[in-house]
């Protein structure tokens, strides 16, 4: 009896609140339905490789009835957000370079799936640099490159790895650090003049599409191993939204598809349209991930 009373009161209040504006009531009703499923926040880093998988996952989750928000941040802030719960999902975590963040936040973030595990990374040179094929060829040829290797930010794991690499192979190189944009701009500047240049490259990235580059092979494989890209979530996601967690733990996407999407986006295509197209072409794969 008491329950009925409360329900009636609540209904009356809702009716009162909506009084005089039927349309408003409608939209309230709609958003309440979505509200039940909740809002999920994606962390989006400024790398070109983050956008395609994020958009694909976003469209799928929106289809499931979730409200999706995107938070733009650099990688360390993204992991901080993941650990605090401000960000629920991050689609573009690179191993082993992001291991430091997992060590830092091991209790509060979870590595739920591998997107793809054959992402090449290493030192790259333009193809017009004929004499350099493997890292052994670098020895004695440092001067050709002005004794400089261009890397990304100081403090990034790739930066430390390159420093270790220079030391291990006893090369007369100094690493110049800036940022992804700074490094690419510098390389572009030198490639415009057809000067020899060596810098840090990784796939998937449009640099391989824009310039003729080759990766300097390292047969020993001590330094530039292939990276794998992972989906990372806040530790609570498995409890809060099991179906999302289930979907993400089945997640995978071929690296070639990601690169193709990056190229389309950089050529000016709409990000969500590109993602939608991929979903339509890969409906089987999506269904598999959703276990339908």
């Amino acid at each position, binding site marked *: 009896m008491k329950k009925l009373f409360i329900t009636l009161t609540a209904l009356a209040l809702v009716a009162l609140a909506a009084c005089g504006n039927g349309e408003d009531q409608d939209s309230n009703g709609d958003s309440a339905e979505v509200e039940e499923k909740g809002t999920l926040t994606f962390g989006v880093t400024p790398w070109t490789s983050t956008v395609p998988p994020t958009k694909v996952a976003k469209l799928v989750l929106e289809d499931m009835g979730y409200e999706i928000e995107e938070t733009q941040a*650099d*990688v*360390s802030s993204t*992991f*901080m957000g993941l650990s605090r719960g401000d960000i629920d999902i991050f689609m573009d975590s690179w191993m082993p370079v992001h291991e*430091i*963040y997992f060590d*830092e936040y091991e209790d509060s973030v979870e590595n739920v799936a591998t997107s793809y595990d054959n992402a090449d990374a290493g030192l790259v040179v333009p193809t017009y640099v004929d004499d350099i094929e493997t890292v052994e060829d670098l020895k004695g040829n440092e001067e050709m490159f002005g004794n400089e290797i*261009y890397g990304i*930010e*100081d*403090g*990034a794991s790739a930066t430390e790895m390159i420093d270790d690499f220079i030391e291990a192979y006893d090369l007369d190189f100094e690493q*110049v*650090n*800036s*940022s992804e*944009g*700074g*490094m690419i*701009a*510098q390389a*572009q*500047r030198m490639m*415009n*003049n057809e000067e020899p240049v060596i810098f840090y490259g990784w796939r998937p990235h449009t640099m391989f599409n824009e310039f003729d580059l080759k990766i300097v092979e390292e047969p020993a494989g001590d330094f530039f191993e292939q990276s794998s890209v992972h989906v990372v979530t806040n530790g609570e996601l498995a409890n809060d939204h099991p179906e999302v967690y289930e979907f993400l733990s089945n997640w995978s996407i071929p690296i070639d598809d990601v690169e193709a999407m990056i190229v389309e986006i950089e050529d000016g295509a709409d990000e969500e349209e590109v993602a939608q197209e991929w979903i339509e072409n890969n409906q089987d794969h999506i269904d598999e991930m959703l276990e339908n």
Partner: protein
Amino acid sequence: MNYFELPLEQWTNTFVDDWFLPTFGNAFDSIGAVLNAFVDLVTDVLLFVPPELFTLLLVILSWRVGGKGLAIFTFLGMLFIGSVDIWEESMHTLSIVIVSTFVSLLVGIPVGILSAMNNRVQSVVRPTLDFMQTLPSFVYLIPAVLLFGLGGVSAVIATFIFAAPPAVRMTNLGIRHVPKEVIEASRAFGSTSKQLLFKVQLPLAVPSIMAGVNQTIMLSLSMAVIASMIGAPGLGATVLQAISRVNIGLGLVGGLGIVVLAIILDRITQGIGQGQNNKS
């Protein structure tokens, strides 16, 4: 509002890639080489002077322009920088600040004088300065690398764009605020325009110009972290390294280093400005 399509993005890209860089690339290379030599020279001098001597000179300077309190602060600040082991980084930052400030003043003060003498010049200069100060620095950071390469020179250029405006504005303001009576009196005594500028207007404008110098230095320091994204060495690089590793302690060390440099430079330039003020 999309009445017609403005392909600004494409125009800019075509303009930069197909015309600007091929045409002016070499010219900018030589400007870059000059600036690079300048940055290297200042850095070498700063790193060559033993920290103890440098501190002593700076303490004496602070004492003369700012008094005992400032001298003590300068000493403690330099002691801090040495003790947390960021001396070398600080000197790199300082040398970029010195060169950027120098270039800013070299361009800024003459432009300020011109725009104080001529309203038409001012009507062009003012919006240009607004543009320079409000355009987000990331917009010109990467183009600077395309023109000048990674490192100190691009950092100086980016810092110049951000930090030069106060030098122009304060010079302009200082000259315009010289009392009419003073100018009339000088004219009455038969001074030429040149004499009027160099013997009356500029000396009276010095406190205002020094306030501009002070602002320029402060803005240069605030660009330190951003400049490190295009390869400028120094305290900014320490901070950038710290934040990408989530190393809060190292971030504070680098950050406080910038603050210490800023306070010392601020008080010294203020002291010089006030000293001039008292004399006049």
